[in-house]
């Protein structure tokens, strides 16, 4: 088996807040292959963005190792470190904040090309800028070169962000809620563009989103990971996860999503939680952190033992209910 492009090996990240420690990401294991799409989904505060930032090298891990092509990124130095930093690029959520408003589109895209020596001479740089704009479907490029970010729509700006990320020929993209601020009608075209790039350049993508339907669509051939309070609770091929969710949290999430079909959405079976309150990251529940809300709570085992992520029916699931046979009626 080829070396995965990114491997998370028992990765944990803590933050100090007001002299207290919160664990944003807790013991996450994950391998991402070349050319693979992985979507991380979960609610705010589940650690999906922190995970993305650690993979991009923006935040160091507090414990555990992150491997880029087999090498621990915290130990890389010199050219090896530079290779990693260029190889993994990030696309941010807000295209209104991530582009310098005082620079033209051409300047924004040309800067990394020149700085990292990807092009020699001004003619070559300009050629490459045009080519990149065409790659992200901003055509004809001449219409965009001299514009400033405020003259573009949100969707167009996000395409510029992608073009900028591609300047340094990365092999891995971390896209954090990259389409959530873009109009509904043009989200799909942005995602299609990313898919096309993935196929053409063999890119791997870690796509962070809160929208499971979008994740299923984008990660069609890839996988979806569901996070809850810092832990990966289910990891499964995208369509399998949506059609056969095994973790009770995934099941609750899927049942809560409204559908754009009046008949279906009004008769959809909803799963009730035991509690609506999301536990504070400062005082995480013991054992399985979902147990105070879990509709399939088993009792003591859930309160005391943290379930490991283990294989179950074509997926990886961290739940005692899944790994243990259901108790017989007499025990209930």
């Amino acid at each position, binding site marked *: 088996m080829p070396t995965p492009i990114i491997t998370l090996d028992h990765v944990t990240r803590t933050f100090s807040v007001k002299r207290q420690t919160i664990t944003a990401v807790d013991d996450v294991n994950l391998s991402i292959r070349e050319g693979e799409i992985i979507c991380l989904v979960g609610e705010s505060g589940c650690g999906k963005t922190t995970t993305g930032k650690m993979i991009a090298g923006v935040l160091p891990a507090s414990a555990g190792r992150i491997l880029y092509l087999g090498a621990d990124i915290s130990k890389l130095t010199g050219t090896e470190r530079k290779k990693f930093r260029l190889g993994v690029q990030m696309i941010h959520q807000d295209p209104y904040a991530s582009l310098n408003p005082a620079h033209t589109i051409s300047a924004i895209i040309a800067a990394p090309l020149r700085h990292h020596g990807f092009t020699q001479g001004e003619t070559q740089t300009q050629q490459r800028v045009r080519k990149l704009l065409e790659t992200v479907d901003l055509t004809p490029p001449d219409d965009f070169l001299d514009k400033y970010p405020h003259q573009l729509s949100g969707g167009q700006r996000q395409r510029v962000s992608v073009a900028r990320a591609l300047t340094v020929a990365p092999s891995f993209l971390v896209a954090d809620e990259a389409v959530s601020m873009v109009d509904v009608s043009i989200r799909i075209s942005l995602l299609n563009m990313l898919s096309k790039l993935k196929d053409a350049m063999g890119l791997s993508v870690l796509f962070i989103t809160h929208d499971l339907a979008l994740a*299923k669509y984008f990660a069609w051939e890839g996988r979806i990971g569901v996070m809850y309070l810092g832990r990966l609770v289910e990891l499964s091929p995208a369509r399998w996860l949506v059609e056969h969710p095994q973790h009770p949290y995934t099941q*609750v999430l899927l049942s809560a999503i409204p559908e754009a079909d009046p008949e279906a959405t009004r008769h959809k079976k909803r799963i009730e939680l035991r509690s609506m309150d999301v536990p504070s990251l400062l005082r995480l529940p013991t054992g399985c952190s979902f147990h105070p809300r879990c509709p399939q709570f088993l009792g003591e085992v859930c309160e005391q033992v943290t379930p490991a992520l283990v294989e179950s029916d074509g997926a990886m699931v961290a739940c005692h209910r899944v790994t243990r046979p259901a108790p017989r009626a007499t025990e209930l």
Partner: protein
Amino acid sequence: MQPILSIQNLSIEYRARRGRVRAIRNVSFDVQRGEAVALIGESGSGKTTLGLGIVQLLPGTARVTQGRAIYRRSRDGAPSEIDTLQLKGRALREFRWKECAMVFQSALNALNPVLRISDQFADTAQAHGYLQGRALHARAEELLKLVRLDPDRVWRSFPHELSGGMRQRVLIALSLLLEPQLLILDEPTTALDILTQRNIMDVLKDLRHKLDFSLLFISHDLALAAELTDRVATVYAGKIVELASVETTFKEPAHPYTIGLINAVPTLKGTKEDLSSIPGSPPDLVEMPAGCKFHPRCPLVESRCKEEEPELVEVKPGHQTACWNWRSAREALQTHKVQG
């Protein structure tokens, strides 16, 4: 029975340095008593402007250039008609909250951060000469329970002590304090997590069932409109381009924009082939294209679309659309999708 709210030929503009932003253009529609109507459209389509216009909360740069918003009072004796756009002073204050309440998108900013929830209720009640003291507390307790909050937990809390979903539910409870007949909800679940959104949706459905108010629901999320409302108005570039029952909107849409919007939203059940995006981007409201404002993005565009703007016409009773090609749009776009 007459509709509770009739918007008639309403146009609203903003003055901007670049020129006039025509946010609402000649919009007319009714909200029946007890009915929930959704205004769906993308950001910048003018839907929030419409809501703000009804309660006269538009910013200073906005101007109502034509039209009326007729509200029909039904309480306190004989029914009477008022144009909400003409209200001033005391009459306006009475209309807001007592007749019509609006819940805004950002619950964090809508509550006064230095007042306890109890004081926010007391303030509103006092300003309107409503219940006080123990009677107010009892009424608030009842409302907080209706939105599935624990009154003991919430009553003495400051807004920052509550989660986003709790604050949003406090606002909904507060908006219902004076028993308004019409509730305007502007993106009430945006920026909330899936499970919190589910909880708010369940609360709203429950409230509609228990209290008999009319609802104007402003959202960009088609699925929420599908779940909560009776009728849907699709707004594009400041104009209603389709108006139909919720079933018709999702099963037999006739306007290429509505069809495109439905096809652009991924669903849990759908396959990859079901999805397609609308080319181009929403128009600049200062320099709008001539003719139908959707024509630069429409797959069915013809020369007529570039010159004349279509008005709403009846497709069948209760279903109106503004498109020159509505007769063939659905069929043409279905085949279009299979080919493309």
